[in-house]
């Protein structure tokens, strides 16, 4: 690979100063960046290893029942935290449905928010990719597009965001805390990832050298704790990215849905919050028909970017299923195959 400098800053201030130089990449768990460096898609001149910065690896429970998650908390540590699993079960399920045990032990929450696309054309240097090389074209268009976007895409880019974690986090109104040379600011997770438009190379709302230090879940998000699920359709039952995934949460009372939260994964360049569907659900009685209406509302704007029209119908059916399962209630313990619609076929439970 290309030679690079490796620097390990002592504190956040030093990290931010180092990060402001062009050609620098922050390294945390390394589960995405290092792979991209090996295949030549990422070619930084300098790596700033933030993996050991102090104070960024803790869970901080708030008075309102919400939680502040340090950016360096490992995926596995968060997913297996007993209180977190109880309070935000769909997030824990999403985390455990992703990658492998080894990767979850290394990957961090902050890094997960900034995963790069898994579009094979993005990863293949011989293919044109506007995201990797601005204005070079998009070889995915008209290519192998079974896994590509059906919402929010443009002719410039049809890649999807691969994160499982981001999907329930978007549904639950997570807020990203950012530090930069100009100080601290907050970004709603829903606004962190950008749709491609004509500038797919600008993937997030972060400015150069800005660093995610934490992500917060508000206490209000815990209102759906007892009725939330994450489901993920994939081509094998583990160690695979979502074809389509869905996170749902229902707040029930007096036989009606007081409020609903719904987001989709694998369908767009960002975790897709389905607010139109939430509006269809809120205030009504839970029923198969209402779930189907919500599913239609969620995909109303969808259109295939290639040979992926099936994902639209699949997403509708998955929404109905995830709402049914959310209505039935979050399981006491996570299923042995987290996020899998086939978990009941195997029966056994996850040893959390």
């Amino acid at each position, binding site marked *: 690979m290309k030679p690079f400098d490796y620097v390990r800053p002592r504190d956040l201030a030093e990290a931010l100063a180092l990060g402001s130089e062009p050609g620098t990449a922050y390294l945390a768990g390394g589960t995405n960046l290092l792979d991209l460096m090996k295949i030549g898609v990422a070619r930084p001149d300098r790596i700033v290893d933030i993996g050991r910065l102090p104070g960024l690896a803790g869970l901080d429970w708030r008075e309102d029942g919400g939680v502040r998650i340090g950016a360096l908390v490992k995926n596995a540590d968060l997913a297996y935290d007993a209180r977190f699993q109880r309070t935000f079960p769909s997030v824990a399920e999403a985390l455990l449905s992703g990658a492998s045990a080894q990767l979850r032990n290394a990957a961090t929450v902050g890094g997960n928010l900034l995963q790069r696309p898994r579009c094979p054309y993005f990863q293949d240097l011989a293919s044109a990719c506007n995201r990797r090389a601005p204005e070079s074209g998009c070889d995915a268009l008209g290519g192998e597009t079974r896994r590509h976007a059906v919402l929010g895409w443009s002719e410039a880019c049809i890649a999807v965001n691969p994160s499982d974690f981001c999907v329930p986090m978007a549904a639950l109104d997570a807020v990203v805390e950012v530090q930069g040379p100009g100080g601290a600011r907050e970004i709603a997770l829903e606004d962190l990832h950008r749709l491609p438009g004509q500038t797919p190379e600008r993937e997030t709302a972060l400015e150069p050298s800005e660093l995610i230090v934490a992500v917060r879940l508000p206490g209000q998000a815990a209102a759906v704790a007892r009725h939330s699920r994450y489901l993920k359709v994939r081509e094998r039952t583990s160690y695979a990215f979502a074809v389509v995934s869905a996170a749902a949460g229902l707040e029930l009372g007096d036989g009606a849905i007081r409020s609903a939260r719904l987001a989709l994964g694998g369908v767009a360049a960002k975790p897709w919050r389905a607010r139109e569907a939430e509006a269809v659900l809120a205030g009504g009685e839970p029923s198969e028909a209402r779930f189907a209406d919500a599913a239609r509302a969620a995909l109303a704007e969808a259109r295939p970017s290639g040979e992926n029209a099936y994902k639209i119908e699949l997403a509708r059916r*998955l929404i109905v299923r995830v709402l049914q399962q959310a209505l039935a209630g979050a399981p006491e313990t996570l299923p042995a195959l987290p996020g899998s*619609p086939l978990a*009941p076929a195997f029966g056994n439970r996850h040893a959390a």
Partner: protein
Amino acid sequence: MPLDAAAPRAPYVHHGSNAGQPLTRRDGELKVTGRATYAADHRPEGLLYAVIAASRIARGRVTSLDVAAAKAHPGVVEVLTPANRPPLGRDPDQKSGPFGFRIEVLQDDTVRYAGQPIALVVATSLEAATEGAALLDPQYEALPPRTTLESGKRFPAPAVGVSGQARTEHGDVEAGLAAAAQVVRTEVETPAQYHNAMEPHAIVAQWDGDRLTLDMPNQAIVMSRAGYAAYFGIAPENVLIRSPFLGGGFGSKAILNGPQVLAILAARMLNRPVKLALTRAQMFGPVGHRGRTWQRLHLGLDGEGRLTALRHHAISATSSFDTFLEPAANASLHVYRSPAISAETEGVRLDTGTPSPMRAPGEAPGSAALEIAMDAAADAVGMDPLEFRLLNYAETEPGSGRPFSSKALRECYAEGAKLFGWAARPLRPRQMRDAAGLRVGWGMGTALFPCPHFAAEARATLRADGTALVETAGADMGQGAWTALAQIAAEALGLDPAQVEFRSGDSSLPDAGIAGGSGHAASAGLALHNAGQDAIARLAEIAMRDPRSPLFGADNIGVVARAGRLHRRDDETRSESYADILARAGQAAVVGAGRMQRDEEAVKERAMYSHGAVFAEVKVDPDLGQVRCTRLVGAFAAGRIVNPRLVRSQ
């Protein structure tokens, strides 16, 4: 070697010895502690690292390479391209026998498939070589690749697999189909499959004058020396191949490939040891794969559901420049009784690397198609799939009429069906759902595989201390040869496996043939067995001629070797230890040799196959289209089981 005390001892152990015991792997501790050295673990002094630059187009020509940029990168020592590649002792465009393929070793600028080597960068570190390869920035003149059945050029097959017949017909298939009450037609397409083993291909090549040492995973250690030797104009005896451990082979590590030859060439050119390890991505192209197939079957059925004719036609894909055709159609020749059977293969040329033998070539995609066709036929005649197969059971080998050396397929069907609970299967499809609402399907199929034997040799040395050294150049791809072959040798020698030192995986040892086609244990194992028996016979000879031995004069009665002692066959109280016999004779050792030589007359008389039956449960989520196999039961009649633990782990 500790025995598993909890495991039951097989009842058929003879001579109180070893075959049939569920021993744990002799190499297990080395492997789990990381001390088993694989090829890429070798780092001889002065080692250089080679990295392939692979074509990113599938057809065309390389018009430029930025060799200067690669060479300017710190650590890069040399860049091999068609412009400076030294000559080879053999034309790589010539086919060199059934196991030898045309290879790409930078002989010209043509690109024949994606992933073809177009340059080799050699550097003082892996990182420098990798970056050097990335800096080559190849430019291409690309042509449209032919990657579909429609765009490829079709041709009549000269042969299939390794020297298999491309066209076979027993009986009159046309007449059988014409006379059938109904004909069931089935089409099956199977994708390309790549033997991308846990250990990708790797080689460390070292020259010492005109002697060459290769650390590499290899499934045919002695035989393959000749191939490497020919490319470098040296005698096969000058090549030493060391391959004690292979991280999976699946057939691909029995075949010489271009990247290996380039690494050896670089080592000679630079006069330093060179290591080349393919990346996982580079495994898709220059090192073989199972080719795609398009198969059509016609099954003629009489009014009772008996086959009147079976026709299996396959189109098998190969590369544009060499031919290996998956013998899929031939999988239908030996399974079911039918008065007429034909198997025919055509080829189609695509812009891919050349396919090669991979894990049951022919049987894997061919029997899948045959079993799908059998299910369709059972459905067409309204019969249970198992009942239909039993109705068409072959009592003798279809076509030849030869009796089977053994065939316990009926027992496999019965045992598998019982374990699975097959009798509860509804005849019509779409009848079963589980508690969660998933649709449930049950299916079954027949397995058949031939019993090949290859020429093999071995040596067994009984030593003064009563222990033994046995030697053969075998290959353990993970299947357990280190353990099973030692058990066979120990049994022949009448010793506990712990008293047997086994040397293997080195081409200076007696030739153990090829570890492929599921024939290694039978081939190398029989050579070891014969070597052990030869050593015992020589030892017995010494004892029986020695008046001071209790075995003196036992020539006509014979002796039995057990637990490190020879016993008089008619009076086992008269015995003597191996060590005592050798000590009195003043000999440090006695050496026996053995060969595996198949009795060709016996082979002509009997058809030899292992058989099996597999039962599967599949669940389908009807809304989300998710499909998972939730249960699989297999019952196999695979001959004598040398080590049940190893067999179960397969």
